[in-house]
């Protein structure tokens, strides 16, 4: 009898501890978002979104950084998607399981853990200097595409792997070739999962600062980029720039920009969750 009570007590204690741990992170996030909202929300209006940067905090807007981020996002998607998905398909369906492929696999996982500034240095050397792209949107996109490539590959592989083996069997048994099986069965069935992974990877890319600073993205760009070869800035860099200014007005701007950036990542994550749920339903 005593034992049962003891166990129940332990259960209660752990439950309380678990709740506390869970809440810690959430509460901190809530405080952070709350204070940002208080500081920045009043600053967000159409003018703020469409204004070019300025020396006066009241006139300065997020337009160039927002457009820079959108350019980066689109180009990074275009570059990383075909590379990542093709590599994942190769590794999952075509490559023979041997020593070489397992070395390859381990190293792709390792790449996902390489600090982003290292990718910046790589991008600086290869894209900016050797390929002479300069500090352009294109160089930035290639660098970020490399950065998220491991994430795209790993998540795509997981989604393809999640397609039941019985589907492959059925397709092959009807006389389908490998490519037909991949393109007509595996990719459609894993589409939601792949998209989820890609969006999450991109929402990481949109928040990256260090690698872009290394390749030479500028803190002050007078105009939004109009071609892939233009110089650019992105939202995190703009935020960093504003915060480092002495005038109080720029701090408000930074808070407003943080709200915008958070909004973008939350929306992207929301879309990812939506597709994941939809996809899971389809497989059942």
């Amino acid at each position, binding site marked *: 009898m005593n034992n049962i009570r003891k166990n129940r007590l332990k259960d209660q204690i752990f439950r309380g501890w678990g709740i506390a741990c869970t809440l810690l992170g959430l509460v901190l996030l809530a405080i952070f978002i709350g204070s940002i909202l208080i500081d920045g929300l009043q600053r967000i209006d159409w003018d703020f979104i469409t204004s070019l940067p300025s020396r006066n905090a009241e006139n300065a807007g997020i337009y160039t950084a927002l457009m820079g981020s959108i350019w980066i996002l689109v180009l990074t998607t275009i570059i990383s998607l075909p590379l990542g998905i093709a590599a994942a398909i190769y590794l999952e369906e075509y490559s023979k399981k041997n020593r070489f492929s397992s070395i390859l696999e381990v190293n792709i996982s390792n790449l996902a853990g390489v600090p982003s500034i290292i990718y910046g240095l790589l991008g600086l050397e290869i894209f900016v200097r050797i390929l002479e792209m300069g500090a352009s949107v294109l160089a930035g996109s290639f660098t970020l595409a490399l950065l998220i490539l491991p994430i795209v590959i790993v998540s795509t592989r997981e989604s393809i792997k999640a397609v039941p083996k019985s589907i492959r*069997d059925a397709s092959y048994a009807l006389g*389908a070739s490998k490519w037909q099986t991949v393109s007509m069965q595996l990719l459609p069935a894993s589409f939601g999962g792949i998209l989820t992974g890609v969006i999450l990877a991109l929402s990481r890319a949109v928040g990256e600062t260090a690698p872009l600073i290394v390749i030479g993205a500028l803190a002050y760009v007078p105009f939004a980029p109009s071609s892939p070869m233009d110089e650019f800035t992105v939202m995190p860099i703009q935020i960093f720039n504003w915060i480092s200014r002495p005038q109080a007005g720029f701090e408000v701007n930074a808070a407003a920009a943080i709200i915008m950036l958070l909004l973008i990542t939350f929306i992207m994550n929301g879309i990812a969750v939506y597709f994941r749920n939809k996809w899971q339903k389809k497989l059942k």
Partner: protein
Amino acid sequence: MSKKEKGIVIDKSIKRKHKLETKGVKVFYDDFMAIKGIDMTIKANKVTAFIGPSGCGKSTFLRLFNRMNDYVDGFRLEGEVRIDGENIYKKKINVEQLRKQVGMVFQKPNPFPKSIFENVAYGLRIQGINDKRYLSEKVEDSLKQVALWDEVKDDLNKSAIALSGGQQQRLCIARTLAVEPSIILMDEPTSALDPLSTAKIEELIYELKEKYSIVIVTHNMQQAGRISDYTAFFYLGELIEYDRTKKLFTNPEKQQTENYITGRFG
């Protein structure tokens, strides 16, 4: 015929009877010998049942005839597997073409997560057939052959996943028939189904043998007795006994066979 179809195994235009043969077949998974040298001839337009305890190699042996073992890591084959005298493991064979001639139904119903229509049409689409009218005819015809048409004719665009297990398995058979194979391999096709669905599938198998050679792996000895013309008993990778079903079940030659069919082991 295009160049791709050069390695064709069976010419559909000749209504030949298709015979399966193995000569000294051994199958290895890495170092493990799963099939220990089997010579066997399977007759055309009959139902042949493979029985034996789990792990006896009957499924492995069945999958030799459409080369589905090729995907298993460490698979290696010695000896010859022939269909109408042609070795289907020689280099020149077009495996995709082979599988159009040798269809397969699996243990668990495995419809694609697509519509009922697309499930049946898939085998034709991968051959490059996209003519809507032809596909519709073929789908209807195939679904009628498995007596599923009346149940699903108004729901062709609905997901096949929503069908019951028995319906799914009949759909999988229809999908196989749509490609017009001449041989159908069935790997315990009713083991995941309820008795009523099982009865329907058995009835179907009985009708199908008019047009197809059917090889079926089953754990259910009554089923083998009900539907097959010939039965082969496998044990530990060897073919112990192979005879007319009636003979094998009433008067087996080997003691091991008798022990198995009377339920003394397995």
